């Protein structure tokens, strides 16, 4: 990376990147905890999840403020301008991922007792794929990697297929066991939240491509 003549400009851009990566770590943690809840039902961690959600919101705010300030101070152009615009967009995308993760936790809390005949772990596996792709999208951002960002989009296609499988599987479960319809409905909603997180990871990857190549795909 070539340096700017004004060193503090490099520092500003570097700092925005660090803020995004730190926010990304928060999101990986949050999504991971929410997905573990699907399997473990340890509702004791709900307060931690709510606290992390607050941290996520203020992280986004901080990135937006710092980026706006940098735009004002430096009036960036070309790749610098793209980097800052992309940071603002990624921060807002991460914030939305946080909302979906919290929704998952809330739904587990509402779902309460797991039906004894609920043996499938397809939603948990969907969650695992989603978190892997989130992590890949954040690495793509960190490394400015077009290759990784393309992988994210490919993986997301697989995630969509997994989601459809989950969906059909739960429809069948509902038809077979109508006493537990409300539980299965929550599970269906959770699958949908995961699928949405998957889409948002793909959006992050697209922003990375735009930042690196300057083309809107």
């Amino acid at each position, binding site marked *: 990376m*070539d*340096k*700017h*003549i004004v060193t503090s400009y490099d520092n500003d851009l570097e700092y925005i990147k660090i803020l995004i990566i730190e926010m990304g770590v928060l999101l990986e943690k949050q999504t991971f905890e929410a997905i573990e809840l699907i399997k473990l039902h340890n509702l004791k961690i709900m307060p931690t999840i709510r606290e992390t959600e607050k941290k996520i919101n203020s992280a986004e705010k901080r990135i937006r403020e710092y980026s706006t300030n940098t735009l004002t101070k430096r009036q960036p*152009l*070309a*790749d610098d301008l793209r980097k800052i615009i992309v940071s603002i967009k990624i921060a807002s995308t991460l914030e939305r991922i946080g909302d979906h993760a919290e929704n998952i936790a809330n739904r587990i809390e509402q779902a309460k007792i797991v039906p004894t005949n609920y043996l499938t772990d397809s939603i948990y596996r969907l969650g695992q794929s989603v978190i892997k792709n989130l992590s890949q999208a954040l690495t793509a951002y960190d490394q400015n990697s077009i290759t990784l960002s393309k992988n994210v989009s490919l993986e997301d296609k697989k995630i969509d297929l997994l989601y459809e499988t989950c969906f059909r599987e739960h429809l069948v479960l509902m038809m077979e066991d109508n006493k537990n319809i409300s539980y299965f409905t929550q599970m269906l909603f959770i699958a949908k939240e995961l699928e949405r997180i998957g889409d948002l990871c793909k959006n992050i990857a697209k922003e990375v491509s735009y930042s690196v190549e*300057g*083309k809107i795909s």
Partner: protein
Amino acid sequence: MKKSGNLMSSKIKISSKDVSVFYSQNKALNNITFDIDEKKVTSLIGPSGCGKSTFLRCLNRMNDTIDICKVKGKVLIDNEDIYAPNVDPVLLRARVGMVFQKPNPFPKSIFDNVAYGPSIHGLASSKDELENIVLTSLQRAGLYKEVKNRLSETGTSLSGGQQQRLCIARAIAVSPEIILMDEPCSALDPIATAIVEELIDELVKNYTIVIVTHSMQQAARVSQNTAFFHMGNLIEFGSTQKIFSTPQFKQTQDYITGKIG
């Protein structure tokens, strides 16, 4: 040199073909070839000493006035070689007006500053006609309202921004087709700069404008096409939008983003 972006097709006003310029033995410009569209603003950017002013001066043969300066290659305006032997440089400079960095009104009245050009070129056949040209030019330069009650005061009594607009009025008064501007705002404050930029937007409807600027933001705001010069070479030329968002060459990118190449 690579042409980037999709330039909207429009009529070519000025064509620079293999233009090289020497000051004695020193080559200041190296085979510059590109076209300038009619009724558009083209900005020339690049580090100090890269040859922007030299290039601008080629377009109205101002370099002829510098003894040690030799121009090679061709500059065509409306497809005619302006360096051809039958071209009168004085008449050429009426077609291709110039505005400089430092506003340079003559030490005469506001009226006379603008009337001078049309008088020496015999553009007005009567006093009324001359007055008409002066007033229209002041209006087009966006200065009329501010000076209409003080036309006999000296041009140097105006503020810097007003003086620059007076120089623009003076350039317009001889009905040029092309206006060259060499860093016209670098001596102006932000408000005066905004007014001149607004004026450029208005002028481009009737004139072809070539502007040298050190402000990337100004180039991005006022021009449709941008040429980036570096050490006497034209590195990149294309639509302004393209040059400032996704330049094709690393030298351009480094310059506009303020990086050490």
